[in-house]
């Protein structure tokens, strides 16, 4: 064997390994708790679709933890229409290909009546098309890309869209904070890009200037090339559209490059993990969020207490809160319909009116989208607290 042949063989193996990694991580797990229902009543089985392993596993963990609180609360009150609530996990790895496999598994399991997920826009779009065809209602707690609910009548969402958030944050940056020269750094996923585009057009529309726009790929660790370019443009605000694991590194690397600029993070940054990872570099960062766990609303505090008791005192993030809301909302729809059935639940969602969730009032528009108020938090002494300047409605 010559060196060349060996190296070609090795190179092929490297590529095969890269593919294998995706495949290996792709096995979902079952952790459906809750026994089969007693008596004749149909169980209320929820398909929980999220990344439970891989790089985005921390979001899946929040999603599952929030759903479990809802399940326990409902079961303690006798279940839904007399049927026990149980959760069936589907690990989509935040990946479109894997999401389609999860969707097929859920669709084939006829005891599943509603899907709580998928969490991220790219897998939600891929899997949503399958649920729509199969007539299985999917309620996404956190996927924000505009196109998702356009898939059809079985697709619902209880967080605000990227278009609405982007526009709101642009108005907040220019009008409320008074920033004029704005730079954007975004994750090239459907979510990061969609939000960045909406933000950009919002900034231009409200009289600000976008002085630089750079993208990165999720999972990247080095952002200095992009930040160096943005630094040259001299922005007075840096908008970060993406998720906190990359965000903490972006903030740290910006400081290492000597960039001293106010940062505004999208809702993907709203996690207690951000200050843990980012340390001093993320102090003072403003972040958009959909759930404020310091709220005095008794329903919120009841959830926060139950969550903390079940999760070693950790505070719930908005992913957990929305996941809880999805199940409670679907349960309400099933109760209104009087039976645990896919189509009946979907019809009842359309006529549910205003449901008061812990993440805010949920009223669906004709697309299956909601409009909720935008909340801004700030990183202060290593924790997220309500920011002094809030967006004007």
């Amino acid at each position, binding site marked *: 064997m*010559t060196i060349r042949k060996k190296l*070609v*063989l090795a190179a092929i193996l490297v590529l095969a*390994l890269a593919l294998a990694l995706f495949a290996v991580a792709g096995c979902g797990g079952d952790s459906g708790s809750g026994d089969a229902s007693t008596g004749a009543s149909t169980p209320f089985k929820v398909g929980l679709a999220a990344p439970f392993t891989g790089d985005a596993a921390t979001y899946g963990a929040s999603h599952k933890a929030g759903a479990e609180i809802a399940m326990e609360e409902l079961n303690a009150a006798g279940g839904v229409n007399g049927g026990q609530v149980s959760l069936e996990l589907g690990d989509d790895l935040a990946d479109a290909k894997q999401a389609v496999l999860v969707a097929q598994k859920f669709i084939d399991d006829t005891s599943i009546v509603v899907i709580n997920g998928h969490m991220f826009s790219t897998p939600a779009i891929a899997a949503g098309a399958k649920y729509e065809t199969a007539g299985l209602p999917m309620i996404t707690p956190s996927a924000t890309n505009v196109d998702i609910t356009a898939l059809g009548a079985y697709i619902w969402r209880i967080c605000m869209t990227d278009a609405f958030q982007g526009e709101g944050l642009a108005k907040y940056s220019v009008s409320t904070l008074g920033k004029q020269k704005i730079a954007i750094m975004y994750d090239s996923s459907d979510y990061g890009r969609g939000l960045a585009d909406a933000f950009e057009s919002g900034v231009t529309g409200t009289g600000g200037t976008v002085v630089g726009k750079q993208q990165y*790929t999720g999972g990247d660790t080095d952002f200095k090339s992009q930040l160096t370019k943005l630094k040259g443009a001299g922005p007075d605000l840096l908008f970060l559209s993406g998720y906190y694991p990359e965000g903490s590194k972006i903030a740290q690397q910006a400081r*290492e490059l000597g960039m001293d600029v106010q940062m505004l993070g999208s809702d993907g940054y709203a996690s207690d993990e951000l200050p843990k990872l980012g340390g001093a570099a993320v102090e003072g960062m403003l972040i958009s969020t959909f759930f404020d766990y310091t709220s005095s609303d008794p329903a919120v505090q009841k959830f926060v207490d139950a969550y903390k008791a079940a999760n070693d005192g950790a505070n719930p993030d908005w992913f957990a809160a929305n996941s809880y809301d999805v199940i409670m909302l679907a349960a309400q729809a099933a109760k209104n319909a009087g039976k645990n059935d896919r189509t009946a639940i979907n019809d009842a969602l359309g006529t549910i009116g205003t449901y008061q969730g812990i993440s805010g009032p949920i009223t669906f528009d004709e697309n299956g989208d909601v409009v909720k108020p935008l909340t801004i938090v700030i990183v202060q002494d290593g924790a997220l607290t309500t920011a002094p300047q809030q967006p004007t409605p």
Partner: protein
Amino acid sequence: MSELGQQLVNGLMIGCLYALIAVGYTMVYGIIELINFAFGELFMFGAFITIMMMVPEISLFGNTVNMPHLNFFLAIIIAMAVVGIMGVVIERLAYRPLRNAPRLAALISAIGVSILLQNVAQAIFGSQQVPFPDIPLFTTAAGAPKAFAIGGVQITYFQVFVVVVTVVAMLLLNFYVRRTRMGRAMRASAQDKRTSALMGVNVNKVIALTFLIGSAMGALAGGLYGGVYHAAWPLMGFNPGLKAFIAAVLGGIGNIPGAFLGGLLLGIIEALGSAYLPMGSQYRDAIAFVILILILSFRPSGLLGSTVSQKA
């Protein structure tokens, strides 16, 4: 101009880290002609063990455990020792039994070890990113990185430290392999194991030592990488491992100065490519793989590798 300078510094930094891992690849390949895919994972363990030694307590298997709270320099040396021994154990258990088997068997075993180590790390440390503690020597009291600027190019003290460590490690290693008895035994074993054994070289010992040194270099790279990017996570070794493999091929696999040069070049090409090619940041990883394909097509022995075909 200062932007180009900054981009070069950015690339140099990544390049040094690639170079350190590439040395591990290149040494092991040089001696047993095995691409040790587990190097990325040894690198990851290097970062985690460095963190473990530096913090007062850490969560392992979901339980909080007290830790020695050492300084960075001591921590990284311990990490190098532990990971070096891990490398030797892996060689003994997963590669030595397959040394006379078809080469593919050993490669598959290496991939298996790599996936096993990733999963073990997830079980021990959890799937979340673990923050890397600030290093007081390189951090101001306010928690900001200590840095200076030359002509608008911002350089942190830690970056200077990483470059110095990389260069010193390469020089020492090259000296060791080129100028010492044990190094000669390594080179002899690389050329012909059977004849070396007849000349009185303990080939098993030489191979174990190669794994020890290569893995320790991986751990050093991991500890530094953790410091540069302020975190460690179970899948962190995958991408740098692939890049280091490319760096090793680029420089001429089996060649230590080649791995160093390959790492630096790859880091700089990546940084400049992602800054100046249209939509370059999107193709950052693709740039590296294009280089791999070009090198394999036009100069498979690499920049510094010998062009002589190896024994059958």
